[in-house]
């Protein structure tokens, strides 16, 4: 097709945004990470910005609070992602099996939490975790079980639960859509070959929706590494969540509480590199398994 001008006009607004809110900021983050504000002499006179090379990176990577945050997020991913992918897939397979009752009604209900904004999902669950407000804690108390959802060992699973609740239905719908696209002849053939419903789900259907599983897995991963909203909200109510609980919280704390832009930028670049490396690694790994 000809019409270079038309093509440029159609793309211009998007690429203007791409440059201003994506490329320049990413470049700025990398640039900032090599500089620091230096007080000259005895702290008198104007602040100067000086090149410090990798000093900020060394500072971030040798900061135990950053490494703890990174560890927390990795642990969070290890619990959350398998639960999410497996849970959504099993639900989609069950709904696709044809024996579930009230299928579209069930789908709507499972999808509902996705229409609840993240901060409000966190608010609802925070209240369900708060003694005195929570009917769940009362219920446990009636059975003589003391439970603290915001304790040192329970706070991470409590965050996983919020994320799971928010996104399970959304990912289930994606899997369900992929399952609907599986050719019916393939399924009929497997029935003729004597595959029962469980075997059919595990051996035939699941491999055929691999693409959707990988996509959901990678998006869940990228999103999970940014962990911020839920812990920030819960931190208003529990001392178990520090201001540097996750890398994103660390960046916010460095930039806007400590006003150390170099440190925040270095932590941002490390988080970015970590995200890219993990997504790339997962893609490569799944591609090799497919080959």
């Amino acid at each position, binding site marked *: 097709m000809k019409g270079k001008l038309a093509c440029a006009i159609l793309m211009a607004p998007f690429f203007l945004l791409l440059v201003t*809110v994506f490329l320049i900021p990413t470049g700025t983050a990398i640039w900032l990470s090599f500089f620091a504000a230096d007080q000259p002499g005895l702290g008198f006179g104007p602040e100067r910005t000086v090149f410090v090379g990798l000093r900020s990176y060394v500072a971030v990577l040798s900061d135990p609070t950053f490494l703890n945050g990174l560890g927390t997020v990795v642990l969070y991913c290890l619990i959350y992602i398998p639960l999410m992918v497996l849970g959504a897939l099993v639900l989609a397979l069950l709904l696709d099996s044809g024996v579930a009752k009230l299928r579209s009604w069930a789908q709507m209900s499972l999808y509902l939490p996705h229409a609840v904004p993240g901060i409000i999902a966190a608010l609802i669950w925070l209240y369900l975790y708060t003694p005195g407000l929570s009917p769940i804690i009362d219920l446990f108390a009636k059975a003589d079980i003391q439970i603290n959802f915001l304790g040192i060992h329970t706070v991470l699973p409590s965050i996983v639960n919020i994320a799971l609740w928010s996104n399970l239905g959304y990912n289930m719908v994606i899997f369900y859509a992929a399952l609907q696209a599986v050719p019916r002849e393939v399924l009929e053939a497997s029935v003729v070959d004597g595959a029962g419903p469980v075997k059919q789900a595990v051996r035939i259907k699941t491999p055929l929706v691999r693409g959707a599983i990988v996509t959901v897995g990678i998006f869940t991963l990228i999103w999970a590494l940014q962990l911020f909203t839920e812990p920030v909200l819960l931190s208003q109510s529990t001392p178990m969540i520090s201001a540097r609980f996750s890398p994103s919280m660390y960046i916010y704390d460095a930039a806007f509480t400590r006003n150390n832009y170099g440190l925040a930028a270095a932590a941002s670049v490390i988080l970015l590199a970590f995200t890219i490396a993990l997504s790339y690694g997962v893609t490569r790994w799944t591609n090799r398994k497919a080959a």
Partner: protein
Amino acid sequence: MTLLGRTTVNVVVGISVLYTLLPVMWLVLAATKDVDALFRSDLFGDFSFVENVKNLLAMDKGLYGRWYVNSLLYAVIGAAASAFISIAAGYAFDKYSFRHKEKLFGLVLAGVMVPQTVLALPLYLMASEAGLVNTFWAVFIPALFNPFGVYLGRIFAQGYVPDEVLEAARIDGAGDLATYFKVALRMLGPAMVTLFLFQLTTIWNNFFLPMVMLSDQKLYPVSLGLYQWNSSATVSPEYYPVVIMGSLFAVLPLILAFMLLQRFWKAGMTAGAVK
């Protein structure tokens, strides 16, 4: 399938449905109670729904109303503009060919991977350079960027706009842009709705960027406002019923939008997932 199998399937689905529904139902129920009833955890307290609504609207001189209007402006206008921009780019990626096209498309996809938290500090510094910190635009402009929308737009353009139609329009003497706005855009209607809903959810959810950019409470979206009120609630419990009622109202527009536009987004999500 055996009776046992059928029962198991329905029990598992049933429990999952309860898991997703009960917290929302708790929110609805909690919105009808006053502070005392909330902390007594009675299933049904005195019915103070109307009073809670009044308190919500009166709290801090009617701040909630402002937040709500702000959120609607950020989300509705932002999502519409974003959908329009993304679809145009996606369409151009599908229908035109030029050098390094796929490399450029790769750059667009890379945009999906970069965390918001990484961009926040540079965006803040740029906005303060431009004098936009603590203004409507500081939150509005970055939210227009939706690289995933361009990806979906390309897939939709491939599926919904046949090249023959464009060829026919050209033979009739229509220019490229006229063809896009008069012919193609109409065929991309369902795609537009999908992207609109997608970005509506994202912007309505937006929390990190407003938190970084805004210090004036009057510019807050609902999400940030409720966050702040919740921190007040830990000190003065009379904020609890207000936050709960505020949350309930904040959930309604998205549920409404999804129910009204259900037909479109289902088709849209399918297209995105299968490819």
